[in-house]
């Protein structure tokens, strides 16, 4: 073996390979911000608000997965509620076999990942519209299966399964959940940022933009698509299982096509191919129903709010998504970026 000495190019302007912490700086920044917010929320807020914050953290996992799937890889999926259901019901199934919490969550994720691989089989052949339709049909099949499981389990009925509380019944339950979920979200951010940066990220974006060219560049398109579907489905499945444990109750009625659409909407409103976009989208769509509830109560009265508040929430959500699709296709993140650029341009013009 001869050692070949490669001469390093002299200091180029803006070296082409940046160190990892620079490539993942928005992910790092997001993780630190969430850490600070979690510390703030757990110390100043009371239980119900921390619970809301916990659902936001859970939603973040799915939004990050959706961002990787749709924003980075360009694979549109309306099947996320199906993956959530698969994860939640596998957790129930494992829990009924008296397996520990970690096994339930990982099992839920793995079951969803297997399902994701099955969905990815059509994804190899299908693109765009057909993939969207295929994932819708997968959603209905999965929800049907879990619904049958729920109906045929004696003593469960319409209400659904109960999952045992993870941290007992102490006062600090929601605090402990918040820190646990923060850890999971940080892991998810790391995973998504790692996959989105460097070689994999470039390959995924080329597959998204020009699939045919990607295959001519010796990029294993099929392998990447399978991998992305498996990983994102795992994240959704784990989220479903965790949500089941946090709420303590799992029912097939929770997993509607509307839920799947919310994840699509989140990444579109937040901004595609950006971890910040996913987090912002998750925050907006967690807060929206409550904000609308309060707004309706203030404008139309409490009776309307309790009766029809959810419907007004759905309308607000649809209007928001449509407004972003028509007015700002890049989502919030691109709006912020654009604004920052303008401010900078104005500042340099003044000088």
């Amino acid at each position, binding site marked *: 073996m001869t050692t070949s000495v490669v001469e390093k190019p002299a200091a180029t302007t803006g070296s082409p390979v940046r160190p990892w912490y620079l490539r993942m700086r928005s992910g790092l920044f997001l993780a630190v911000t969430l850490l600070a917010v979690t510390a703030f929320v757990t110390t100043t807020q009371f239980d119900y608000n921390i619970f809301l914050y916990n659902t936001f953290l859970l939603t973040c996992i799915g939004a990050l997965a959706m961002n990787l799937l*749709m924003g980075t890889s*360009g694979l*549109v999926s*309306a099947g996320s509620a199906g993956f959530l259901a698969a994860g939640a019901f596998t957790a129930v199934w494992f829990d009924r076999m008296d397996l520990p919490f970690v096994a339930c969550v990982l099992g839920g994720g793995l079951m969803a990942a297997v399902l994701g691989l099955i969905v990815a*089989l*059509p994804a190899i*052949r*299908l693109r*765009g*519209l*057909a993939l*969207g*339709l*295929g994932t*819708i*049909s*997968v959603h*209905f*099949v999965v929800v*049907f299966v879990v619904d049958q499981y729920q109906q045929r389990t004696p003593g469960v009925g319409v209400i659904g399964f109960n999952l045992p509380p993870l941290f007992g019944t102490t006062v600090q339950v929601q605090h402990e959940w918040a820190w646990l979920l923060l850890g999971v979200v940080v892991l998810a951010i790391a995973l998504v940022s790692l996959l989105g940066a460097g070689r994999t990220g470039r390959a995924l974006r080329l597959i998204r933009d020009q699939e*045919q060219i990607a295959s001519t560049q010796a990029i294993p398109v099929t392998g990447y698509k399978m991998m992305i579907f498996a990983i994102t489905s795992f994240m959704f499945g784990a989220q479903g299982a965790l949500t089941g444990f946090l709420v303590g109750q799992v029912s097939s009625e929770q997993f509607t*096509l*509307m839920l799947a*659409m919310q994840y*699509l*909407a989140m990444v*579109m409103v937040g901004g595609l191919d950006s971890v910040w976009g996913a987090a912002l989208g998750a925050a907006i769509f967690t807060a929206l129903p409550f904000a609308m509830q309060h707004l309706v109560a203030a404008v139309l009265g409490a009776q309307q709010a309790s009766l*029809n508040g959810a*419907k*007004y929430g*759905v*309308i607000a*959500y*649809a*209007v928001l*998504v*449509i407004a972003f*699709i*028509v007015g700002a*296709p890049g989502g919030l993140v691109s709006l912020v970026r654009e604004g920052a650029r303008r401010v900078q341009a104005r500042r340099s013009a003044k000088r």
Partner: protein
Amino acid sequence: MNNVLLAIFGGLPLGATYSLIALGMVLIYRTTGTFNLAHGQFMLLGAFVLANWQLRRPGSFVLGLALALIAAGVLSALLYVLILSRTVGQPHWVAFVATLVLGVGLDAAMSLIFDQPSYNISIPAMPDGVVDLFGVKIGWSSLVVGAIGILLSVLFILILRFSRLGVQVRAAGQDPVLASQGGIQVRRVYVGAWVIGGVLAAIAGVLYGSSTIVDGSMSGMALVAVPAMVLGGLDSFEGAIVGGLAIGVVQGFITVYLGGEYVNVVTYSILLVLLLALPQGLFGTQEVLKV
């Protein structure tokens, strides 16, 4: 034997409804390239408007029907002009997500406006009672609904095939630049296609609503019509009719032999298999990718 006939006659009215829905969706898809998943909401709006009209002023059917068709047509045109025409140039799935979200939003809005739990539509001169066909008892109304649906669909296809309008619609869909060079007002054709699609959906809603009750769940029928559309080929008008009737009859068989709760899951499994094994459908154009 009786069960087979029951399945077929039970499925045909449903199939005719699917045909009408799928025809509108194919028309919109072929001209503007948008796969409209909010189509069921046009259907629901038509049915709601007519049913509400009949609730307030019993007896006046024609005016209510006209109002229903106009409402659906206008809503459809508005959606295209204000929203979906602006997704051109964005990634293909943007319009897909937009129509899905629009559907959900319209559902919520309509359930706020039409706040009764359920409505009824009565078409005057619709025969009552049951008829004995080869030993199977079938309601007259469902036979009439099926017949009207099939007739309208065939009529619609004949118009598209043999009239000047039909040529314009097909040309504008195939090659907008060339069509506009040939003096076709492409944008007008696009809006027209959405209006017609909305009106067809409203007709389907009125017909189907007259055979059952009208409530919010009706808008889900357009999603079930998607397998029909894929079976016929996404861009084939004849395929929409054949696919619609086929899916309707298959659902009839599922209802008779397996039970109602299996209808959706089997239909969507069929869709999944179709997408994998026969993506261009029975009559659709095969997608050829040139690099």
